[in-house]
């Protein structure tokens, strides 16, 4: 089974992010790390490969230092890595990102592409669906468990009220939720071995793409405003009907 996991390099979530006031874009000049959300995707990929054979290729579109995110994935056990890095790609919007990833993934070939449901920095949560569209395969999103029996992939799909059971054949794009598994730590042997694993760096011209990157972005960040302050909660005083009112409230919010 050929498994591709998309991983993003994001500003260290432990340090507060900052927006560039002129472009409204996230500043990425500080410490960057493998998106913690993508560790679940890597683990999911490794578990599938361990159970059903095959191997995991990690793909990332990032500046040169994106190498670190791929190295960590290789140290965890992925077999090979592809970094797409090109000054042209600076300022890419979600569609450009998806097109670049799709082009690189098509070159590799795949049975399953795994991504996180949304990234920790941009968190638009749309790249995976665009990717599936471009690759011409279904997208199964919000997976909280994955089971494969050799022909069918069974997914429990997290929803607001519970979960859907989804079945799909391969090839497919799957987005996994944080908590789907417990990502392993890389091993020392993995770290030492990461350097000798196959690793390619590609540019847009390697992929035959020209109209991508910031210059061709369809999306622009028009403004960034502070989120509305939370409203004060409602205090229900017990006049004998409190229990019912609370139950009604929770039912209205679909919590129960």
């Amino acid at each position, binding site marked *: 089974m050929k498994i591709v996991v998309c991983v993003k390099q994001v500003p260290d979530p432990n340090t507060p992010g900052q927006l560039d006031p002129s472009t409204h874009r996230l500043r990425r000049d500080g410490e960057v790390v493998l998106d913690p959300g993508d560790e679940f995707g890597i683990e999911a990929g490794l578990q599938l490969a361990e159970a059903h054979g095959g191997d995991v290729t990690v793909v990332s579109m990032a500046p040169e230092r994106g*190498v670190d995110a791929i*190295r960590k994935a290789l*140290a965890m056990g992925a077999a090979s890595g592809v970094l797409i890095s090109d000054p042209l790609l600076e300022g890419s919007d979600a569609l450009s990102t998806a097109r670049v990833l799709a082009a690189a993934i098509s070159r590799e070939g795949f049975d399953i592409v795994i991504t996180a449901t949304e990234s920790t920095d941009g968190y638009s949560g749309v790249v995976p669906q665009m990717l599936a569209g471009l690759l011409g395969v279904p997208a199964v999103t919000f997976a909280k468990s994955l089971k494969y029996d050799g022909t069918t992939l069974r997914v429990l799909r997290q929803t607001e009220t519970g979960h859907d059971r989804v079945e799909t054949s391969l090839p497919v794009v799957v987005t996994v939720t944080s908590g789907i598994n417990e990502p392993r*730590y890389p*091993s*020392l*042997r993995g*770290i*030492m071995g990461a*350097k000798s694993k196959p690793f390619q760096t590609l540019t847009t011209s390697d992929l035959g793409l020209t109209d991508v990157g910031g210059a061709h972005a369809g999306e622009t960040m028009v403004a960034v405003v502070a989120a509305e302050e939370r409203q004060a909660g409602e205090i229900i005083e017990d006049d004998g009907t409190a229990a019912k009112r609370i139950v009604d409230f929770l039912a209205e919010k679909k919590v129960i």
Partner: protein
Amino acid sequence: MDFELSSEQLSVRDLCRDFARNEIAPKAAGFDETGEFPYAIVAGMGKLGLFAMRFSESLGGAGGDFLSYCLAIEEIARADASCAITLAAAVSLGIAPFVEFGTAAQQERWLPALLSGEKLWAFGLTEPEAGSDAGGTQSRASRTGAEWVINGRKAFITNAGTNISAGVTMTAVTGGSEGHKQISCFAVERGTPGYTQGPKYRKLGWHASDTRELLFDDVRVPADNLVGEEGGGLRQFLRILEGGRVGMAALSVGVAQACLDASIEYSTQRRQFGQAIAGFQATQFKLADMATQIEMARLLTHKAAWLFDHGGKPGVYASMAKLHASEVATACAGQAVQIHGGYGFMEDLPVARYYRDVKINEIGEGTSEVQRILIARHLIKRFEGA
């Protein structure tokens, strides 16, 4: 000159930092209080490959360098010194003698379980009457046919009495005369008749590290259990201790860093006289001195590790790193408690534990006095006998 760490070294540091922060730090106070040995953490460190990391792949190691090993020890010690010494003693003192002096058969027999962290091996040099003066060893081994018969006792031996302790490499006198004792090393497996260990010592710190007295009463081991050269035991042990001291220096840097981390966090939050105590110059100067001293200790440690990686002989730098880092760590722990005021004296915050755990660093693997003797001996060597 290049102060940059390689990408592997950074990965090792980050891995150990994550592991220490997530898996060790939350449990350290509990282990300290109960004295329970952290089996699950040892297993976790084994799974990461920390016991195997600095040994060559041909022996089943991970092929990492000594500097990476020091970065690992530092990060683990930043969360808990007991876990760090368990690892450092297992690697520097337990595994290294087999790697450096063991026969192929000994390596095959004992290394796999030790490199995976499934089992721990101890290092028995110190005796009740022979500490700094290791040449004063009184334990004896005599050859009878195909066996050695060992009698004696060892004091303060780390990793000797856990459920996963598999044995000890110990020194014993095998000949010579008083003043010119011939000392050799023997591997003794746990369970060998006559080999017993005392109860756990009650200690000031390192509560979750296992330390035992070991007794050898007519213990018979096959001739094959001689480790290294007959009569070369003391020289071998002193050589092993060189690596051990660099590890102890890294451990000290980790504890000192933990003291600084805690002090920065606390002093920027604790308010007195209407302001954070970090606003007082008296606090700021303590923080500045701690940070500067720690950086010096770290650089010295990295230099010793670098020498280990480039020629295998840190020599006097092992002593300098150990001496300086352990004294810096003790000073930093003292200042950390001071900055925390009365709360620093309470066991609710980790600095009290750092303070209790740190003193041993100036004693184990050669006291500060012994390190100064070794450094001075190196300095005046050229003039002796001139």
